[in-house]
């Protein structure tokens, strides 16, 4: 397969592309089980983690994935760019290009930054999360994890619960799950629903209890304290009461329900400690699978000509 020049969001991938990535990830997963967890596939390739936002898990996951494929990894923890201070995003990218890197994995607080990079420089661009826009590798690893947990994504009833409006994970997951045939319901207070949500083809509910008995997957999104300061809900106690996943709600969910979370979890807010430790919560599998999926993505982007 000849990969796209950049991976900016899920939209650009066909369901066949996604299928290919998931199958390739399955093959790569075995590498992580070996005594010597390394193959020479991307030997001589250089990838850089260009992170404008602190993110330990995504950065580490990409770094492990790249290293297991023998690529050289540079980490560039950039200061938040602005016109007035520091080097501009474009200059940083041009510098990396001049150093001959083959791929730039970019995390940025500004939506569209990876897209702009792909217009400005030659190296392959992989979006590791941009503002409220997209987080395609998270969505791919979520698909992969769900497929492993349930066998098939098609027909799955998935509830995405929480701050849909500000979540790039929600946007990418919504696209990815829908594309692979799942039935998605967005759950949260109206203040955390994005504009134009009705055009995304998902059901919308403001009542978690109404949704819970009829869903196969409960995907709990992280809720950030600053949303309370913005006046989007009264306080965390009320949020947790109305939209948090606790043992009581788990009892009303189907017995084989799968709980997912992009991490890191806010125990006691969107997910109670008991549910966080429930075996049906596959959050640690998601982390493990992240490496295999990112290996597949790197291979797709850099393995060809």
């Amino acid at each position, binding site marked *: 397969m000849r990969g796209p020049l950049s991976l900016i969001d899920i939209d650009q991938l066909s369901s066949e592309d996604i299928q290919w990535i998931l199958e390739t990830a399955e093959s790569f997963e075995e590498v992580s089980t070996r005594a010597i967890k390394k*193959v020479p*596939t991307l030997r001589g390739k250089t990838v850089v983690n260009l992170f404008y936002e602190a993110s330990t898990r995504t950065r580490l996951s990409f770094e492990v994935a790249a290293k297991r494929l023998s690529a050289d990894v540079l980490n560039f923890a950039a200061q938040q760019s602005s016109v007035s201070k520091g080097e501009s995003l474009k200059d940083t990218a041009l510098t990396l290009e001049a150093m001959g890197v083959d791929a730039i994995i970019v995390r940025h607080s500004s939506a569209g930054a990876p897209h702009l990079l792909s217009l400005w420089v030659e190296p392959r661009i992989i979006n590791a999360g941009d503002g409220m826009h997209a987080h395609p590798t998270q969505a791919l690893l979520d698909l992969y994890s769900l497929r492993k947990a349930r066998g098939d994504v098609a027909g799955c009833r998935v509830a995405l619960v929480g701050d849909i409006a500000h979540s790039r994970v929600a946007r990418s997951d919504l696209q990815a799950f829908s594309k692979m045939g799942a039935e998605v319901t967005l759950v949260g207070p109206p203040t955390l629903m994005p504009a134009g949500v009705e055009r995304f083809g998902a059901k919308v509910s403001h009542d978690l209890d109404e949704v819970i008995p009829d869903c196969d997957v409960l995907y709990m999104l992280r809720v950030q304290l600053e949303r309370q300061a913005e006046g989007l809900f009264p306080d965390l106690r009320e949020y947790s009461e109305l939209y948090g996943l606790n043992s009581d709600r788990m009892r009303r969910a189907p017995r084989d329900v799968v709980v997912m979370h992009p991490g890191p979890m806010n125990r006691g807010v969107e997910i109670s400690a008991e549910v966080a430790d429930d075996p049906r919560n596959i959050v640690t599998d998601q982390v493990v699978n992240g490496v295999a999926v990112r290996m597949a993505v790197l291979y797709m982007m850099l*393995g060809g000509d």
Partner: protein
Amino acid sequence: MCALEEMTGVSKESVRVMEEPDIKRALNRIAHEIMEKNRGAQDLCIIGIRTRGVYMAERIAGIIREVEGVAVPVGTLDIAMYRDDIGTKPSPEVRSTDIPCDVTGMSVILVDDVLFTGRSARAAMDAVIDFGRPHSIQLAVLIDRGHRELPIRADYVGKNIPTSRTEKVRVALRELDGTDAVDRDSQEPEGLDSSVREGS
């Protein structure tokens, strides 16, 4: 392959070089040579290189089981992760590798359908060594068609077929292709790199 021929529309002369009984006899002989050289089937591990090497490995293991009464572990190796031409062509498909035992101290028999430049065998050896430190690695192939680019030689050969570089040798196996046969195509469709096909 047939679809490819139809698509390219290049007529070529195809010569049948092995029939089903020939292949059966060749694999029989290879199995016996393996047992002879390794003094039985102890500490043997047979690993087929995807795709057709896998079926050959299973057949050879079957013969050994009949003769020695020993179930030799059979593994599957995908060498896409170890290729030396990454970045020069579209990414080859990566499929799963399954090594059923610890290879350290074992005699590993790598099985492939065609030995050509030797690059697949090199990749396969690198892959095996990543799983441990075998006592030895041996190579069994159905066809050796020459034109080596690396200092590699097969320990067990079904048939030597002299070829020109541009010719193509096609191995068909019952499990995958419905029939057992080896054909030599004397004319290569233009623009198709013959090395793509090696070991497939």
